[in-house]
């Protein structure tokens, strides 16, 4: 069980360009954190840094866990799946079961796989090739693959972005259920504020170099600040005028 996620003074740069600057964050277990912010704010970079796919230049990410090593599940916005590669959904989900050394699955693993497929409502897709599934079905299969490893922390990188409203709600309801049943901690990137209001416990608002955390109400109800963040980012991208993010923002440089 995850006890805490602590990010201290994280700094990530690519080719001399600073993507994350002194980002600090303290995440409580069993909570859903929405990460919002304009494009280029470093939201995906943050998730990839937590996954260990990107090595920060400075700062640390501490995942305190009862077990030796915390398990992290990850569901990206989309995956490149060869439509002609006819792997059935069951096999695709079971790919996540990598903790055992034996090539064949144990009874326990078979049971967990079955339970997870029922949980995510992918059991009726079991024999269908993943390449032939609809967007919503695929995302549920990807979620099932992430959950089959019983993650302590689940990272969703705009996983519902390409889905219709019904599929989005269905997906997020599953995530919420996983939080309630297993105490999974969730960080999810989302651009849909209605979705954030419905499912998040806390929000991390990100824009280049400035971050603010708070409860859903306090951040989303501050319309002036939100407008400022998204508008200034747009201006910065178009005109590159100096200090657009810092000059106009009422957000603090450090997180709570």
């Amino acid at each position, binding site marked *: 069980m995850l006890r805490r996620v602590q990010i201290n003074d994280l700094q990530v740069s690519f080719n001399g360009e600073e993507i994350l600057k002194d980002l600090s964050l303290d995440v409580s277990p069993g909570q859903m954190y929405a990460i919002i912010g304009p494009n280029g704010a470093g939201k995906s970079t943050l998730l990839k840094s937590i996954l260990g796919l990107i090595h920060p230049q400075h700062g640390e990410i501490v995942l305190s866990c009862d077990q030796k090593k915390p398990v992290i599940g990850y569901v990206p916005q989309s995956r490149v799946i060869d439509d002609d590669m006819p*792997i059935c959904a069951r*096999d695709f989900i079971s790919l996540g079961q990598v903790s055992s050394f034996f090539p064949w699955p144990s009874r326990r693993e078979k049971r967990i796989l079955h339970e997870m497929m029922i949980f995510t409502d992918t059991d009726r897709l079991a024999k269908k*090739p993943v390449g032939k599934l609809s967007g919503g079905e695929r995302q549920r299969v990807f979620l099932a693959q992430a959950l089959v490893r019983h993650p302590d922390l689940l990272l969703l990188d705009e996983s519902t972005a390409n889905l219709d409203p019904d599929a989005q709600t269905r997906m997020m309801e599953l995530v919420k259920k996983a939080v309630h049943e297993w105490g999974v901690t969730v960080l999810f990137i989302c651009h849909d504020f209605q979705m954030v209001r419905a499912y998040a416990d806390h929000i991390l608002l990100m824009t280049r170099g400035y971050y603010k955390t708070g409860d859903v109400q306090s951040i989303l109800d501050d319309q002036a600040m939100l407008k400022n963040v998204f508008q200034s980012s747009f201006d910065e991208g178009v005109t590159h005028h100096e200090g657009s993010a810092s000059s106009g923002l009422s957000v603090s440089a450090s997180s709570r």
Partner: protein
Amino acid sequence: MFQYDFMQHAFIAGTLIAIMCGVIGVFIIARSLSFVAHTISHIGFAGAAFAAYAGIDPLVGLLAFTLAGSVGVGQMGVRMFRRDASISVILSLALGLGILFLSLGNIQGNYSRTLLFGSVVGIDLQDIWQIVAITLFVLIALCAGYRWLKFDSFDQVGAQAAGLPIRWISIGFLLLMAVATSVTIQIVGALLVFSLMTVPAAAARLYTQSIFGMILLSSLIAVLSVWFGLVSGYYTNAPVSFFIVAFDAVSYFLGIIYHRLMERRRAVA
């Protein structure tokens, strides 16, 4: 037919190699490494030609060149190596080197033909033991790394996010592929390694949607193709390799028809 030692040896060696190729082929196809496998087999041709020129065991030359080639591919990065231009350059260079070594060693045409097209009926008992050892090594290594390899081959994004060492998995697999290629070249030759290592696996994925099913079916098609090749070659005196390739190709084209029929049925349902 089985009263002859050479036919018994051919059946034993061919069956073992077919099983190994059937298994490894599924991962070669999943990782889109068909042409990398083809290039490594040509590098193997250069290695075997060098061994003949230097007067050493052909298997040693094959292994040395294919393993070095795999490490080279691993260093360059598989993605870069998949590019057409890189493959053409290295494939041509390997063939050129092979011809150079054959010429420098003043090696007879028969040997060149064996290297390029294989000689399954020329296998002696010592070769059998070599093949048994190498096949077992490859199969045990594939079993040991099965889950990681499977994850990385069919869903690299997921494998990377799950913290698997994907670079080491990739290099390890390339090395195994080099070993498997070296031993297969001795049976079907450098030009036709492709047929045993990729066609049965490519055919298998048209018939089944389970990864384990693909492995079983791919091995079965490879084994049947070798048996068909040996029996047909024995009775017709035509090259065994031709019959192996023909069987694999027919399995593949029948697979395409089967796959289309199933697709149509699914669409109707």
